[in-house]
């Protein structure tokens, strides 16, 4: 390199550093400038359709109230894998995951403040759901309640509880259904052992399990969230139907702002407004439209919210809360490891 070109490189370097310096100081406040804000929502599988609509409406509402354009990018995969990706550096502004332990894992890694559960209403759970059954048209195996799952040659589709929030909830719903009807822990263990003998595949995420059941046509019954069940049945063109068991688990998918990322990117204001929007009347109406049960007393719109079928829902406390459930059931060498034998093994 000839000597004469050195000042050129120094000039380039100083321009680059000046430019990047400007970029970061510009992004301090929500109204400091008008460049569009970009948020990344890292979510689990079944929320794709919900957030596609939420993101469009939120962008309009935020621009109207704060005068700043915002676009929200989405990332969807199995909830556990998504938590892991955020911990490994996927730059989420918000996480909207399936289960409490997944958000807690991100918090434990230091990316989310430890009081995240207190930052939004209802312990940061803006909507809930229940685990229901999806069966083939006409319910040929006559599956109405949890014990029916382990009769005859019924085969069951549910994702892997180790990686999937949907899978964890299905496992806990099955376990809790035994306890809630007066059974002992030993009865519950016998029941889930029998249940997982009837799972021909364990997909890693909820959406893959849905595809296995509805598109590949494997299995007699699919255990899944009510919202995913509605979508699955609507897409099946009359070949599938929903069965509400008399009792099931209440699904509480939590949300959190990823503090470390929003503070570095200067997106905190928009990120908090985004999650807050899920609790607003407009947000709740969209939530209900996509068959999630929105949180709150007043109904979001007259039509939805009245049509929710009654179900005797227990929550995670029936099985001892998330921390204990994670250790007892899904930890290394836990109940799931002990009872599950992969097909053919």
């Amino acid at each position: 390199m000839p000597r004469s070109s050195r000042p050129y490189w120094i000039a380039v370097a100083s321009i680059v550093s000046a430019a990047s310096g400007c970029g970061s100081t510009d992004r301090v406040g929500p109204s400091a400038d008008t460049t569009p804000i970009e948020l990344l929502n890292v979510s689990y599988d079944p929320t794709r359709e919900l957030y596609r609509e939420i993101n469009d409406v939120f962008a309009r509402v935020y621009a109207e109230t704060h005068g700043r354009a915002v676009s929200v990018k989405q990332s969807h995969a199995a909830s556990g894998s998504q938590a892991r990706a955020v911990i490994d550096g996927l730059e989420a502004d918000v996480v909207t995951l399936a289960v409490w332990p997944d958000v807690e894992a991100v918090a434990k890694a230091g990316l989310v403040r430890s009081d995240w559960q207190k930052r939004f209403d209802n312990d940061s759970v803006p909507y809930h759901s229940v685990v229901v059954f999806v069966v083939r048209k006409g319910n040929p195996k006559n599956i109405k309640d949890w014990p029916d799952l382990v009769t005859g040659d019924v085969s069951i589709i549910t994702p892997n509880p180790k990686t999937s929030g949907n899978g964890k909830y299905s496992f806990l719903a099955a376990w809790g259904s035994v306890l809630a009807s007066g059974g002992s822990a030993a009865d519950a263990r016998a029941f889930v052992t029998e249940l997982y003998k009837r799972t021909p595949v364990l997909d890693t995420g909820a959406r893959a399990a849905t595809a296995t059941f509805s598109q590949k046509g494997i299995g007699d019954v699919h255990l899944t969230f009510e919202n995913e069940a509605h979508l699955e049945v609507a897409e099946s063109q009359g070949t599938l139907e929903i069965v509400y068991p008399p009792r099931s688990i209440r699904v509480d998918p939590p949300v959190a702002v990823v503090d470390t990322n929003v503070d570095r990117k200067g997106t905190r204001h928009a990120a908090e407004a985004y999650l807050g929007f899920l609790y607003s009347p407009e947000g709740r109406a969209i939530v209900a439209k996509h068959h999630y049960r929105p949180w709150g007393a007043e109904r979001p719109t007259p039509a939805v919210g009245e049509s929710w079928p009654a179900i005797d829902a227990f929550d995670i406390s029936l099985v001892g809360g998330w921390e204990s459930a994670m250790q007892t059931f899904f930890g290394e060498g836990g109940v799931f490891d002990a009872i599950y034998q992969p097909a053919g093994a």
Partner: protein
Amino acid sequence: MTSPRAPVTHASPVVNAALVAAAAAIVGLVIVVPLASVFAEAFTGGASAWWVALTHDADTRHAIWLSLTVAPVAVVINTVFGIAAAWLVARFRFPGRSLLISLFDVPFSVSPVVAGLALVLIFGRQGLLGPTLAWLDWKIIFAWPGLVLATTFVTLPLVVRELIPVMEAIGPDEELAAVSLGASGWQVFTRVTLPTIRWALLHGIVLANARAMGEFGAVYVVSGHIAGVTDTMPLRVEKLFQEYRTPASMAVASVLAGLALVTLVAKFAIERRLESEARDLATARAQDAGHP
């Protein structure tokens, strides 16, 4: 052997026909039917619906664009590396040479998922270089550079593996002659080495490009699944399929399958050139031997 075995060519016509039928059935079931069904599904709504599915969805457009940028960059890296590495291995003898050649094959034997995870362990936030990258504010994993790295890794052997046998077969004589006549290193490369390896190089590039476009496993791990940002074409195919948009999913799949067919034709044409060049070389050698 007490009883002489009948030559293969004299096998009974029934056995022959059965074997041919079995081979045809397997090829048909495993390759032709699935490939045809992808195209059939992609074009169920007609060519215009196919075109709309490919071009009217911003995330799909971005996925196609992303694959068209990631794959060529990975191929260029592989080409430069492949030529340098093959030259080193074919022209020099040094301790650890066999080990090095074996290392070139590691990406073939390692599962792509493991390759992706290895990249996360190095470049991830908690990884070896995580703190340094965070300090520099460089994004590798869950961003474009990570996709290029993962793709480069899985396609690494394809170019170098094509070049080593050709360079060894040709030998250093012509290059040495050029050097003795005063050619510079670059002249030797562009006028002597490159012309002799060009068809093998092109063969490697075509294969590497096809593999790079289609790569799923390693890219899946490092992509972060951000629609419209880090979804390549194969990832987009899966996502569309899972979102019940099967025709759109198959439209993208048909582009990948079409690329595979183009690759096949290019590969066939290049292989014919390679064979004729090998024949020419053999003839030339024989003539040299005849006229010492």
